[in-house]
């Protein structure tokens, strides 16, 4: 598939800190890319460089074949951008604001009314078209910001934390909208909320301390980090804790056995970390039978993206510099 965004060795240094440290990635056409990372990881900085609001210290950013630094106006015409915290002019009316935004984005006068109407309809703000932005709820304002990003019908949407500060219903609406938009254009969004990225994105780039620490679709990320971390099992046995843990420790392929305290004395419950791809569950069953323990429950826990995320972003802490600047 065609590459629409090409980022190579992008670095952004501030006076004392390095916010983005030599990251490279490509975004293909019609991909929905999620930028995932804890606060202060360099997500917003990267998106701001992508949209031409900030300049990189070094590295190359090309959008649709145009260099952001050399041809900023062309790039800005290609991108619809929703900044973090959705800055709007509170004194303007919704339709008036969108019409002004369409005008400065170069939408010709003849089609402006239609562009504004379409954007308002898609983002479900048509019912507040004549309201003053400053009097709208946070959810509506967020969607006015989205409508602004959409109004000139850009090839690429860049959304910085599009659901922050919304209630669960509004979050669902925005996610549905983003997913729908992603079917016909390229979307890059940032988030520190995992289920969001998992629900919406076709590909995830995990960024921490200004560096990329994971890149792939959610399933791939789970698989690759799952291998490293091993699989995780919940086991329940009828019998005493000592006897049961002794029996489990003898099973081949098990890395760690952790006792989980329960209220019933007769039931021993464990969380087990095992080597992947060993057939561990069968051997646990056999081991329980040979030691005269009755197996009450055995289930494998599938690793969530959240586990992956927590795992790699905390692992990195040991060998990285102090905090990477702005979020």
């Amino acid at each position: 598939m065609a590459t629409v965004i090409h980022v190579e060795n992008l670095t952004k240094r501030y006076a004392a800190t390095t916010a983005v440290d030599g990251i490279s990635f490509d975004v293909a056409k019609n991909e929905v890319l999620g930028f995932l990372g804890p606060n202060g990881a360099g997500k917003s900085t990267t998106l701001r460089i992508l949209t031409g609001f900030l300049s990189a210290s070094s590295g190359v950013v090309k959008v649709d074949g145009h260099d952001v630094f050399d041809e900023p106006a062309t790039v800005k015409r290609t991108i619809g951008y929703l900044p973090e915290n959705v800055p709007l002019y509170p004194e303007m009316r919704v339709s008036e604001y969108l019409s002004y935004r369409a005008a400065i984005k170069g939408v010709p006068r003849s089609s402006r009314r239609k562009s504004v109407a379409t954007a308002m309809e898609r983002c479900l703000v048509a019912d507040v078209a004549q309201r003053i932005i400053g009097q709208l709820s946070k959810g509506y304002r967020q969607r006015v910001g989205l409508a602004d990003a959409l109004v000139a019908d850009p090839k690429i949407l860049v959304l910085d934390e599009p659901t922050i500060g919304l209630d669960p219903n509004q979050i669902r609406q925005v996610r549905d909208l983003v997913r729908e938009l992603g079917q016909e254009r390229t979307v890059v969004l940032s988030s520190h909320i995992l289920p969001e990225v998992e629900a919406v994105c076709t590909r995830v780039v995990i960024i921490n301390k200004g560096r990329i620490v994971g890149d792939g679709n959610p399933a791939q990320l789970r698989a690759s980090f799952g291998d490293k971390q091993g699989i995780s099992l919940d086991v329940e046995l009828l019998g005493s804790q000592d006897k049961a843990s002794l029996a489990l420790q003898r099973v081949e392929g098990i890395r760690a056995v952790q006792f989980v305290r329960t209220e019933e004395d007769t039931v021993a419950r464990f969380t087990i970390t095992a080597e992947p791809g060993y057939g561990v569950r069968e051997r646990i069953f056999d081991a329980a039978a040979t030691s005269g323990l009755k197996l009450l429950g055995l289930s494998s826990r599938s690793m969530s993206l959240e586990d992956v995320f927590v795992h790699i972003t905390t692992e990195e802490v040991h060998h990285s510099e102090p905090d990477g600047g702005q979020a």
Partner: protein
Amino acid sequence: MIIFAQVRRELLAFFYSPMAYVLLTSTMILNSGVYLFILAFATEPGSQETAATVLQYVFGGTVFFYFIVLAVPAFLTMRLLAEERASGTLETLLTAPIGEVGVVVAKYLASLIFYGLLWLPTALFPFFLSRQVDLDLGPVLSSYVGTMGLGAMFLGVGLFCSALTRSQIISVLLAFGASFGLFLLGLLDFVTPSMSHDSWTSYLNLWSHMEDFGRGIVDTRRLVLYGSTAVFFLFATVQVLQARRWRG
């Protein structure tokens, strides 16, 4: 065109804020007060004043005129960039394809138009005078040229100050301070009589510039000073906005 859409938005923004109405009202009261006072003085029996000198007083013959010319541009421009920066809308503005130059030019043009609007009511003074007495319109027009020229210069200074800070208060104080400093520098011309008439202080003496304009003398050197100062500050404003991209 993109710039006109921005100029339109900036003009509307003036009228969204109460500031516009306060400025319109206060300049109108101040100008009318000066006009009526001088008119009353000029119509006293035995007065030497003519209709032409009445207007000369209104346009540059009193401190009130300079107060308006120095303070109003500072107030008009204080919001223009400082507010965008403080509220974060600078980010949406500068990621639209309009560019730093477009933003600065549009904001400047809008403030210049609004400044012109503030002086529009004063057109009533020569209008009523000309119905009563014979009035040469040449000096009237050149007075307006001078008034707009000074405004054009100080609006440039003000817009630059607004780019330096996110605080509107700091912006207005900086702009007024810088403009007033420039004005005082020119007034040195009056207290250094030993200097020749072509000294640098006379080049900056805005008070005597307005006296010339009031007599119908349009000296292009004055216009070059106003124009080049404005362009210099607009250029500096663009530089400040572009430098922000590197600092973040």
